[in-house]
């Protein structure tokens, strides 16, 4: 038979007090609607400040004026003209830079020779602001679309290569050893272990490269383009059409948000196991 522990004894007449809870805070959870409410509030204040004449509409047009400008751009067809030019440059540039960056990143992550050569070059070239290379690229490639696309591709390439080889480096070595212990061939290890293991870092890199591409397309279009959101924003600024200028900025912001959503969706689909 098991021995029972003696019954607990306590001085019942002595007053008790609760242990103070000390574990609050440091768990920031965002509320579902908080951000939208704050945004609506800022827009409302901004609108009120403009409508009452508190802020000069030339320097800061009201949200309703910006919305009108976007609407007019849309119905005139100019929005699509500028947007499609920018999207084409970003799409082609990002794709080229990403394909090359993933290939080089994997090579650096997997090969000793590629690592020793590649990291030296990437370390030397990554810090260069890629927009500074645009004049040189215009000299090399002419004044068409090519130098703008090449600028975007270069900016995307370095960030992608870095995030890919960092992702490959971060794949737990024990998983690779496990695969080797089962005589799994190199190509299968890359496909089934290293690629999915590096994917979180690669997708995080895509978020960065999408911003880089957006930044570079606007900069490149400001330097030398007839069409494109960057060119449109610059022209509007030169003509003091601040409602048009801010309409361009809003379009860029919406584009950035849309890209972020797409990458978020990809992460949910591809990294559901996390």
């Amino acid at each position, binding site marked *: 038979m098991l021995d029972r522990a003696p019954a607990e004894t306590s001085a019942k007449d002595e007053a008790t007090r609760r242990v103070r809870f000390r574990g609050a805070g440091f768990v920031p959870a965002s509320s579902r609607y908080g951000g939208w409410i704050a945004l609506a509030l800022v827009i409302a204040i901004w609108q009120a400040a403009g409508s009452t004449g508190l802020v000069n509409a030339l320097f800061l047009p009201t949200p309703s004026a910006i919305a009108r400008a976007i609407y007019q751009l849309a119905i005139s067809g100019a929005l699509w003209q500028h947007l499609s030019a920018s999207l084409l440059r970003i799409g082609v540039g990002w794709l080229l830079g990403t394909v090359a960056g993933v290939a080089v990143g994997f090579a650096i992550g997997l090969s000793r020779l590629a690592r020793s050569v590649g990291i030296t070059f990437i370390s030397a070239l990554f810090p260069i602001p890629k927009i500074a290379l645009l004049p040189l690229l215009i000299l090399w490639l002419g004044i068409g679309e090519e130098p703008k696309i090449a600028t975007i591709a270069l900016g995307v390439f370095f960030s992608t290569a870095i995030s890919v080889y960092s992702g490959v480096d971060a794949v*737990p070595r*024990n*998983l690779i*050893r*496990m*695969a*080797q*212990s*089962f*005589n*799994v*061939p190199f190509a*299968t290890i890359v496909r*089934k*272990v290293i690629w*999915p*293991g590096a994917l979180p870092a690669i997708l995080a890199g895509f978020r960065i490269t999408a911003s880089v591409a957006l930044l570079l397309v606007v900069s490149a279009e400001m330097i030398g383009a007839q069409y494109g959101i960057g060119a449109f924003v610059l022209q509007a600024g030169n003509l003091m059409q601040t409602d048009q200028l801010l309409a361009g900025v809003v379009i860029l912001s919406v584009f950035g948000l849309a890209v972020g959503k797409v990458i978020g969706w990809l992460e949910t689909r591809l*990294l559901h*196991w*996390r």
Partner: protein
Amino acid sequence: MDLIANHITHRFGDLAVLDDVSFTVGAGEVVAIVGPSGCGKSTLLSILGGLLQPTSGAPELRGAPPADSLNPLTFVFQDFALLPWATVEENVEFPLLHAQLSAAERRALVDDALRRTGLTDFRQTYPKQLSGGMRQRVGISRALAVKPAILLMDEPLSALDSQTRELLMEDFVRLLADGGMGAVYVTHNLEEAARLADRIVVLSRRPGRIREVVTVPMTRAARGEAAAREKLLALQNQIWSLIRNEAIDAEREVQHA
């Protein structure tokens, strides 16, 4: 098929880890390797399994593996080494993907391995949804799927709580009962070694040398009986007396490292 450690010596740079270690694991035999922390037990296992090149000496095989063995030397890892993005079924199937097997044959091997480890109902589960013990069962299931001749187990229970350890130990005893599969079992737990092994290789402090090879004088089936407990305890005490002082020195060394 026998696995032979043939005068294995290993150094990591200036650090001598193993010094002239030789022993043979016979077909169907379970050999435990014990010794103080840092004596090179896991290094020795990696060398035996071909995952690490020894500085000198070599791991060797004698005799042919069973005809149906897809990976004669198969590891069970301390940290389970499961692919977190793959389900239990996909993890168990992973080492079979490159084998020359039809989908039906692969499926049959996976089903059998899952059944033997009690994982049939968890085949679509992801590792993060499983407890530590269940994760290690997946690791064991994956190892069984390739029909190994010798399991190389690197402290397979050390990351688990004591109750789960006990349950998995019973599983190991059951899996190794028919003598069709041998094992090298690296552990710092002398009770596990005494419960499971036919022979226990006791290594000295770094650089690890063989201090003694102790034969466990009873069958694995008999070790579960009450009468065997005292004998096993005496055996553990005997081994502990061999390594106690060195284990104390090794622990101090680790603390000062």
